[in-house]
Structures are given as C-alpha cells and as structure tokens.
C-alpha cells in the first residue's frame, strides 16, 4: 500500500541520489583546516558537516598561532570519494578558512591521539594492568590502592587495542582527545 516507502538503495532512477551511501566505497580521510580563531568558527565548521549530512569521526581544535589568532582543526571524516571532495571544497570556501589539507592523500603523515584510561582493579589484575601499560608505553598519572589512570599516546588503533585489553581488568572510564595530525618530512 505504502507506495512512497521506497527502500533506501532501490532508487537509482531518482533525480536525487537516495541510495544508501554505505553501499558505496567509503574512505576515511584526515583533514587539517587552518582557520581564523574568531567567535563561532567551530560552530561554522560543525554546522557545515551537520547541515550537509557529512560524518565527523573525530575533531580536535586549538589555537596554534597565538599572535595571528589562527587555530588548527583536525577532522577525521568518512565518505565516498565524491563526498570527501565536496567536504574539502565546502571548507575551502568558508570565509575564515586559510587552507585545507587532506593528509590522507598528500603523503605520509603522523596521527596521534591522547587518552586517559581509568581502571579499577586489585591483586593480580592490578599487576596485569600495570604490565600491559608498560607494553603500550602508557604513563600512570594517578594511582590509588584500587585504581590507575593511564595516560596513553598513539594512533587511534593503538588506543582502541589498549582500551580493549583493559575491559576485563576493570575499565571504568576513557577520555580521548581525538586525532591531531601533521604531515611527515619538510
């Protein structure tokens, strides 16, 4: 009866692309955006992503040039190649944006994220958590008789792996910064 309830992905004849984007080839890209650190600039960037239906996997921002009042935003986003292209162009045309760089295509880059991981454990589990922390080169930044807070730096996968190992040992809380990234070389 409901003739209009067309299934997502079954409308290749439509004038709009209503196909489920997840059916298509998706890529994850890390973009760095240099912006004027003016009021509302982050709202502008986020509004662009939400308004046009783009994904934000992670986003970090801080002023990197205090004299010139410029902030660097690192965005990890996922989309089809055409959508990634659009995202870059849409960012580039914003008035406070100086430059947009796609680190994923512009050559090798370093991506790092910082995480604070709280684990409640005693006895053998406490020893195991400590040992695993050493393997991952995590620092203990807070300790009680029943808990640790680990500080861990690395790529998102490394942090995911560490967090997964901490689950059976008594993981209670994770705080992650999101990815900061920079191109390698000169």
């Amino acid at each position, binding site marked *: 009866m409901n*003739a209009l309830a067309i299934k997502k992905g079954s409308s290749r*004849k439509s004038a709009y692309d209503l196909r489920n984007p997840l059916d298509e080839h998706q890529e994850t890209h890390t973009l760095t955006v240099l912006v004027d650190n003016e009021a509302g600039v982050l709202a502008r960037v986020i509004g662009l992503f939400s308004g046009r239906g783009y994904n934000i996997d992670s986003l970090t921002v801080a002023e990197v040039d205090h004299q010139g009042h410029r902030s660097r935003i690192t965005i990890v986003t996922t989309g089809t190649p055409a959508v990634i292209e659009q995202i870059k162009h849409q960012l580039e045309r914003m008035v406070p944006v100086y430059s947009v760089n796609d680190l994923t295509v512009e050559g090798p880059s370093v991506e790092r994220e910082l995480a604070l991981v709280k684990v409640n454990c005693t006895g053998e589990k406490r020893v195991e958590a400590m040992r695993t922390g050493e393997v991952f080169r995590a620092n203990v930044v807070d300790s009680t008789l029943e808990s640790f807070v680990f500080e861990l730096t690395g790529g998102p996968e490394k942090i995911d792996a560490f967090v997964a190992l901490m689950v059976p040992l008594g993981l209670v809380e994770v705080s992650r910064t999101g990815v900061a990234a920079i191109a390698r070389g000169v």
Partner: protein
Amino acid sequence: MAGKMTGAQMVVQALKDQGVDTVFGYPGGAVLPIYDEIFQQNEIRHILVRHEQGATHAAEGYARSTGKPGVVLVTSGPGATNAVTGMTDALMDSIPIIVLTGQVPTFMIGNDAFQEADTVGITRPCTKHNWLVKDTDRLAETIHQAFHVATHGRPGPVLVDIPKDVQFATGRYVAPAKASTGHYNPQVKGDIDAITAAVEALENAERPVIYSGGGVVNSGPAASQLLRELVSATNFPVTSTLMGLGCYPASGANWLGMLGMHGTYEANWAMHDCDYMLCIGARFDDRITGRVDAFSPQSVKVHIDIDPSSINKNIHVDIPIVGDIGHVLEDLLRVWKARGRKTRSEAVAKWWAKIEEWRAVKSLSYVNSDSTIKPQYALQRLEALTKGRDRYITTEVGQHQMWAAQFLGFEDPNRWMTSGGLGTMGYGMPASIGVQVAHPDALVINVAGEASWLMNMQEMGTAVQYRLPVKQFIVNNERLGMVRQWQELLHGERYSHSWSESLPDFVKLAEAFGAKGILCDNPADLDDAIQEMLDYDGPVIFDCVVEKHENCFPMIPSGKAHNEMLLGSASTKGAIDVGGAVLV
C-alpha cells in the same frame, strides 16, 4: 575621514563610503541610535518597508537589477528572524546583500533579554558569513569587510550584528581604503590549461550546446557581452537556466529558450543529445538535470564556475574551470581565436537541423479560449504590449513564474528578478519595490499568483508611500496552481488545501491602499486593461482572472530524464513513478 565617532555614526559613514544610496529597513529598539543618525543626513535614502522580510527581498530586487549590493537595516530579535527567509533566498541565488541588525547591549547578551535572539547563530547557515561586533573600534572595519565578502567570489548575503551599546560608544573610524579585508580573495582567473582543453573539445564538437546561468549575470555586463560574442562566433545553440535569462537575448538567432523542468522541448533535447556541453555559471541544479544518471549521457562537459564546491557536486564534469565568468570567457575566446577559430561547422549545421525538428514541436503551444483568459495568453499579451520598453520583471513562485519565464522575452541581464533556488512565495512584491527604487523611471512589473502575492501584500503600503509605480500583475486562478498541478499528477486529483476561498476583492484592496485596481476576466478586454495599467502613473494591482485548471507544460516529471518530457495533458497519465514521487 578618520577620527572618533559613535558606532551609530560609523554605520552611516561606512555605508556612505561604500557608495550606498538606499537602505531598506524597519526601526526598533536595538537600532534606534542608527535611525537617529539616518534622520540627521540626506545622502542615504531609507525606504521604510512593512515587514523585515520585505526589506530583504527589496534589497535583493535592488541588487539583482543593479549588480550593486543591497542593504537592509533591521532591529534585534524578531527583526532579525523575519529577515531569515530573504537571506536564505539570497544565499541560494548568490545575491549580494548586507543585513545590519541591532542587538541587545553586550552586557545583556545571553540573558534572554527583551527582543534578544542569537542572531549570528540563527543566520550562520543562511549567510555567506556573519559577524557580531562587540567593540566599536572594530565596527567600521567589519562593515567594510562585510561588503568585500558579499561582493567577491560567489556573491551572497552577509550579516553584521551590532549591539546597542556598541552603537552608542565612541571609537575610531576606519575608511574603506585603510580597512583590512582579511584573507578572503577567491580566484577569478581560470587555469589556462583547463581553458585550452575546453577550447580543444569545443573545436571538435559536433553537437554542442551552451548552458548558461545566473553566474553570467553576477559576473557583470561584460560577461553577457562575451557570451554573445562566443555564441555568434561559434554558431552554437544556447540555452539558459531560470536565473540566467537575458544574458543571451531571447530574440537572438541561437536561442533555444529556457531549459529544465519547464523548459522548452528543443533546449532539453539538445542537452540530452549533445556531445559537448559548455556550462557557464550554472550549477546542475535538480530542476535542470532531471534524473541524474540519465543526464546528457554522451557529452564532454565543461563547467565554468567561481565556486569550486559547485564543481562535481551533482554531475561529474570532464573539464572544470574555476574562475569568474568574465575572465574565463575572455581567455577562452582569446585562446580559441589564436588557434584559428575552428569549429566543425558542417556537423554543427546538421545539429541545427535536428534542433529545428525539435523546435517544430512547438512545446509552448496551448489551447486558447474566447471565454476565459488563459494564463499563457495573458503573459503573451503582457509581452506584446511591453516589448521594447525599459522593462524589469519580478515574479512570485509557481506556475505564473514558469509561464513568465516561457512567454516573456529578455534582451538584457538584470531585467528578470525571480526566486530560483529557494522558491520563495512572497518574494516578488517587495522585490519589485527594490527594483523600482533603483530604476525610478523604468516599467517594473511583478508577475504574481494571487496566493504568493498575498504573502507579502503589506508592501503595497511601501509602494504607495514612496510613490513607486510598481505594477502587480496577478494571474489569478484562485488556486495554488503548481501545488494543484502536482496533486493532479501525483495524488489522484485530491486537491488538499490548494485553493483559496474568500480571496480579497483586489480592486477594493488596491483602493484601500491608495493604489489603482483593475479587474479583467475577459480575453477580449485584456489588451485595453493591460494598456490602462501601463498608462497609469502609480502603483496598480491588476487582477487578471484566468482559467482555474490550466497546467504548466512542457514538463520533465520528477525522476525522469530530459528525453522523457511531457508536452501536454494527454501524456500525463502515470508519468511520475514511485521513485519520482518522493522528490519535490
């Protein structure tokens, strides 16, 4: 003139220094200091509208008909929120307008003060850029920057939100020449390699079509001249979007008429069958493309646009050229001439023969009547009786807008002001005011539907107050015609809420406003009635009572390709399938 002045004085001084002669606005508590300054000078003319939405559309009409930015001044809270529709309209159609809003004083921001709204937050997605100025020393520079941003690159609306205490405080004024415009400077020159590639493809084109759009208008009169030169030098057929009408003259030999959902048969078939498409300042909007995966399957596509984000957004193109139309066309013509002015003229002649076959279909024909006025006939007579005059046309949105685009001929750019992207009912009446203010001696006609017209009819008061002789040509079918047409085609002729009962008596309404009202419902009287409207020195509401159930054809049904267009009522049964029905 540098020196200390109040924020309110700075606003007026900055507008003067930017060459502004007219401001459309409405006063309120948070802009009183600026209004006080406006009172004490004579260089800038303030037009008092009746609603802030009217101010934005009037500013759009001013901007679209002059190429200069339009300026709006409104108060905080409801003043700003009422301006949102006009800013969104300007954003969608790339029209430069500068909206100045009052704001509650800085120390009250965030307190839910009387008439407070988060204006920069609300308008962030509907402006090209906006600013909240918290320091009087930054005010002048911000206003100059706003003009720079609105008019450079792809034009658009900008907003400067000015708290009341910033208007009262004194600070240092900065003249435009000394103000920093920031780092916003989009590229205007196209990449010469891309231009050369476009010329090479042009030389090899056997079935070319030029598809031009509003970007040609925005680039300025020189761009239209270059387009005309290109068309006549190559003998290529040319069509245009709704936004670009007039850049190539409707009387020109190579004109195919408008393309798109209600475009001509020849224009849409040429788009579908071409092997070379030169898109100049248009954006492959869904009203143009129809079904995207069947859009012009065999063509090499060249796309010239000043906005890189327009490229490959809807349609993948082969040769993108980012730059200003005027600059790029100049380089393109220069390269083409330097390479020997080559075209495949024999193949192009064959292509023209094919186009003439499509043209012979006469897709704009309709069945006329002796007893009722057909809307198409009304527009044909309006065209015949105003042809050759210094004429500017605005429209509302709907069937009448499409008929106006089909039956009125435009010989120059900036003569056709319509809401294309956003499709704002209620746009045309205030827009006609902005046009008439900019061109006091010209003939300004708003072709309207009765439903759209009622949405901003309060602006008749503005027209009468400022003695603006705008002609409101209302094509009255007592229906929301386009909605009714879609309900007929898509929803089993169930006409849910698409007609207006208890419409006003437009003649009495005109008289109540202090304007002239004319009613015409007989085709035999139409010419005399239109002539009476044209001869009257003052604003007129013309109630043209037309056939109630006329549909607008030709039409590409949603979800269909250019070569599946419908020519008339006989072909509409089952024309839109379930996939197309979800589209607008």
